[in-house]
């Protein structure tokens, strides 16, 4: 009967009809108030309707009832998970397991609950109990794994009892014949290697059972690593030689191990040098020979030749000419592969330093390119080869793009090469790239560099034109997209950057690693709604990590995949501690602060209600943040000693812990001063110390430093005003008077048609944040003083304080007026004729002008300018609105 009654309730929950589920649950509970399962289901419906408090009350009732039936436990587990109280699930199952000691499933759940809750000691005890009661070896290994994790956590302390115990239990299990699977040996290995017992680990793999594990390629790799780490050079050499000659001559791990061992042997026995090197060369020759005979030519042996040269070069045992010949031969053989450039990077660097030598090298390899071929296939291959020459030329800094004329000449040359390659790609699938795309990437790099040197917008616009038109031909080329995003941000257009970014289908884990390309520093561009939406969506990855990753760690235990557990734990914690999450939180709070504070009292309320705990500022906490942002996606051929393209294309400095420190402290200082429950000067003083610390402020902009100092001074001033003593009050008045908000705003420049860039918008944001925070603080000052008034004393000090408050208020107002004036000027700049002005500037440009003599090219630029102007205009408008609506009420 219960089943029939419950089915509609389950269905309502499954289908997400939470309201209906609540009604059904209440109906049943009215008749049977102690139906624990229904209580648990109701808790689930409650939490899903956003009523977390009620849900957790109900959960507590369920827990107190000590349920032992699976459906109730399951429902309660889900509810607890969703209210975020994972630790309570432990108690739930612990109680169930105690009530029914023979129920293996409950004990399993109890263990898993502790795995999710990261309770290593608890899970160890649960596993031991499981093993004792149910005699399954799996549980023994769970216990050992739990110990190994405790050992790892206590690494560095001696004696490390957890490791010792884990090792002892493992060796006993081995003796008793309980160790059978590769993963169990892996567990043993991680215990030994974790303690630095590499010799013992090697002995284990040398044993019969260890040898059986060598079927697994990863165990083979560990095996060789252990040999090198324990200086067993002969064995390491032999094993890697065997892999290379008999199995896979393309295996770079083995080549590295082989050379490491080889040179160690030579160092130990210098007389053997000649013989050893001959052996190595023979190995390279024989693997080369078989590579040449294979259907797909492997690069391994040929690169090994370069690697051997490089190692000999370090001891000056080879002349540059020989090495260079090998490099050229490699280029001739593999220059048709896009990765050839990456392959050669370390080797050309080592052998070439003289300009003369470099340019003759470039000439030599250029002569190996045969673009004149009539046959399409051959021609395509030679285009790739040609691109590699350009890349190497760029990398060795001999592209001769120093002066503006030369740079533009190079760009024109690359653009022509790109256009020559286009007809060959007519039959390519839409998903593929055109053959000459990298020409355009290189040309954009040159233009970006010129922009950085000259601040002449025409260079950025030109790069946008080239990239946009090339993107139309290779609509999925993400290299184009990454560059476009960055260039649009530099030039102050968030909506265009966002348009490109949204075509890249960034999702899941990429929210954490790639969103920064679009969002870092983008708040300055004033498109708050679009930004906030992007940030909120991206934050979903952290929730996913909370829910999904613990389940996967549990799975790894269930499948006894011990080699992955530490890895999963590391993955979970890197996302948990992600620096990007904090950056998202900060920008979301800043956006919300602006959007809610149109009247100062709402601003006070917003900051009062802000949860300060998600904004770390303590050095220890900041140092624990994990930076998972992927900066390695963009193609870059910049010489090592130069600023990378990633850095050059960034609108501002890379956000880092120091940036977080300043921003967190600003938010927290505002919180403390707005929340009447908060006391103390500590955070404001921390902020003051941070903005005067050279080591910190080197990583933020001067505008951000100003804002920090402003907030700190005013809040410190307010705290002095709270005191009754005259001297304290005087100090407060002085601090308030010293905040030069108006001169900060007066010194800002309005936007002109030649200064449109992220920088302009950034100072505008700082100005707006300055006056907005100022107006909120002014409100706080008023409240502080009127509290003081209750004493009804009308002393001179109070009058002074009131005067100071009025002065502060009018300073903020002046700030608003000044900012309004400036922003209106900027609005004039972005009028429709701006497009014409900018177009004209490009067509009449000294070096780029020629390109825009054709109508087609002019149209391309016009299109882009039109879109840019729209974006600029809406950014300026959005700032103006923020200012206008506040000034009305001021």
């Amino acid at each position: 009967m219960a089943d029939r009654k419950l089915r509609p309730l389950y269905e309502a929950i499954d289908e997400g009809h939470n309201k209906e589920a609540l009604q059904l649950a209440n109906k049943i509970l009215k008749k049977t108030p102690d139906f624990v399962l229904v209580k648990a289901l109701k808790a689930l419906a409650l939490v899903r309707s956003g009523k977390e408090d009620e849900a957790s009350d109900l959960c507590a009732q369920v827990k107190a009832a000590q349920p032992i039936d699976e459906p109730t436990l399951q429902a309660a587990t889900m509810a607890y998970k969703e209210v975020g109280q994972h630790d309570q699930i432990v108690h739930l199952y612990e109680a169930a397991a105690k009530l029914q000691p023979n129920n293996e499933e409950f004990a399993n759940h109890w263990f898993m609950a502790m795995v999710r809750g990261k309770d290593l000691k608890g899970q160890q005890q649960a596993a031991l109990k499981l093993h004792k009661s149910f005699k399954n070896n799996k549980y023994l290994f769970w216990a050992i794994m739990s110990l190994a994790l405790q050992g790892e956590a206590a690494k560095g302390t001696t004696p490390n009892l957890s490791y010792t115990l884990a090792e002892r239990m493992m060796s006993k299990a081995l003796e008793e014949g309980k160790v059978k699977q590769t993963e169990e040996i892996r567990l043993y290995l991680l215990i030994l290697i974790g303690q630095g017992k590499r010799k013992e680990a090697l002995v284990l793999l040398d044993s019969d059972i260890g040898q059986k594990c060598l079927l697994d390629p990863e165990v083979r790799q560990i095996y060789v690593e252990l040999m090198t780490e324990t200086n067993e050079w002969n064995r390491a050499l032999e094993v890697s030689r065997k892999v290379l000659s008999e199995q896979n001559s393309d295996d770079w791990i083995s080549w590295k191990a082989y050379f490491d061992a080889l040179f160690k042997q030579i160092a130990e026995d210098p007389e053997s040098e000649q013989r050893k090197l001959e052996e190595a060369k023979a190995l390279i020759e024989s693997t080369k020979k078989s590579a040449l005979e294979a259907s797909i030519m492997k690069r391994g042996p040929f690169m090994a030749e370069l690697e051997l040269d490089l190692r000999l070069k370090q001891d000056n045992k080879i002349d540059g000419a020989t090495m260079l010949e090998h490099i050229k031969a490699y280029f001739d053989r593999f220059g048709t592969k896009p990765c050839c450039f990456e392959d050669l990077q370390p080797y050309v660097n080592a052998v070439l330093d003289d300009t003369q030598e470099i340019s003759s090298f470039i000439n030599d390899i250029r002569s190996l390119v045969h673009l004149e071929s009539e046959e399409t296939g051959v021609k395509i291959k030679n285009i790739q080869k040609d691109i590699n020459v350009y890349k190497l030329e760029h990398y060795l800094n001999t592209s001769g793009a120093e002066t503006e004329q030369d740079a533009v000449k190079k760009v024109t040359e690359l653009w022509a090469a790109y256009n020559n390659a286009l007809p060959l790609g007519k039959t390519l699938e839409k998903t593929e790239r055109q053959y000459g795309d990298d020409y355009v990437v290189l040309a954009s790099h040159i233009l970006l560099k010129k922009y950085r040197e000259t601040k002449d917008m025409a260079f950025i616009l030109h790069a946008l034109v080239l990239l946009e038109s090339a993107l139309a031909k290779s609509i999925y080329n993400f290299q184009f997209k990454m560059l476009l995003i960055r260039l649009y941000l530099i030039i102050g257009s968030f909506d265009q950057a966002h348009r490109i970014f949204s075509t890249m289908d960034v999702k899941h884990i990429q929210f954490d690693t790639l969103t920064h390309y679009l969002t870092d520093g983008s708040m300055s561009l004033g498109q708050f709604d679009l930004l906030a939406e992007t940030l909120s969506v991206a934050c979903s990855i952290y929730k996913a990590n909370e829910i999904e990753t613990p389940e996967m760690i549990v799975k790894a235990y269930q499948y006894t995949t011990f080699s992955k557990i530490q890895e999963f734990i590391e993955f979970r914690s890197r996302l948990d501690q992600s620096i990007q999450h904090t950056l998202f939180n900060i920008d979301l709070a800043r956006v919300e602060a602006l959007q809610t504070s149109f009247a100062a009292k709402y601003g006070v309320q917003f900051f009062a209600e802000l949860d300060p705990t998600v904004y770390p500022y303590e050095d220890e906490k900041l140092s624990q943040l994990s930076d998972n942002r992927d900066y390695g996606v963009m193609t870059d051929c910049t010489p090592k000693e130069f600023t990378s393209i990633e850095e050059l294309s960034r609108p501002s400095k890379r956000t880092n812990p120091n940036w977080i420190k300043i921003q967190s402290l600003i938010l927290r200082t505002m919180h403390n001063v707005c929340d009447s429950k908060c006391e103390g000067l500590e955070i404001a003083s921390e902020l003051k110390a941070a903005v005067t610390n050279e080591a910190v402020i080197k990583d933020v902009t001067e505008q951000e430093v100003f804002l920090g100092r402003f907030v700190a001074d005013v809040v410190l001033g307010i705290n002095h005003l709270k005191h009754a003593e005259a001297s304290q009050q005087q100090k407060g008045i002085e601090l308030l008077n010293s905040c030069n908000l108006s001169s900060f705003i007066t010194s800002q420049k309005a936007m002109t048609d030649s200064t449109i860039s992220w920088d302009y918008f950034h100072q505008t944001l700082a100005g707006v944040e300055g006056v907005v925070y100022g107006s909120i603080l002014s409100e706080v000052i008023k409240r502080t003083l009127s509290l003081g008034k209750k004493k009804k004393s009308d002393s001179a000090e109070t009058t002074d304080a009131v005067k100071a408050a009025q002065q502060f208020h009018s300073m903020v107002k002046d700030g608003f007026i000044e900012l309004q004036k400036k922003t209106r000027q900027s609005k004039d700049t972005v009028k429709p004729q701006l497009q014409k002005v900018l177009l004209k500037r490009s067509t009449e440009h000294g070096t780029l002008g020629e390109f825009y003599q054709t109508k087609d090219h002019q149209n391309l630029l016009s299109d882009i300018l039109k879109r840019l102007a729209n974006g600029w205009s809406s950014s300026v408008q959005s700032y103006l609105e923020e200012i206008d609506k506040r000034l009305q009420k001021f």
Partner: protein
Amino acid sequence: MSQLRRFKATDLFSFNNVNLDVLTETYNISFYLQYLARWPDLFSVQTTAQGNVMGYVMGKAEGTGKNWHGHVTAITVGPEYRRLGLADGMMDLLEEVYDAWFVDLYVRVSNAVAIGMYRKFGYSVYRRVKNYYAGTIDEDGYDMRKPLKRDKKRETIRENGENVLVNPEDLDSWR
């Protein structure tokens, strides 16, 4: 030249070179981690000497009896690293590890480049699955198979599989 090793959970932080390519799908955390938890030796990555991800393969083993087989869930190589023979090295790996009867995979019927590559590796079409790829435009998929050593009589494959049309719901549970 490459370094072939097991895929690590933390590789998810740096596989963008490959995953930003439009034909490579990015899945949620559980998808990758459940493969790693269950078939850690069937999920491998190749990196350059500098450590950049070049490509990866993820697979699983499933089925019972003569249906005990390996399945290639995803195989992908970044744009810069194509035509180097990376894919066949990674496919070999899947064929070695378990004593399976065959390996199978699904591919869009329109993806001629990939189909050609798989044929070269010894795969043939076993059947055509109607609307296997559901999306804005539905598309049929080929179920391609390669028999392994254990299948001495080549019982697990058939000729003219292109003409054997099945509905997705009629596939075995281990698709």
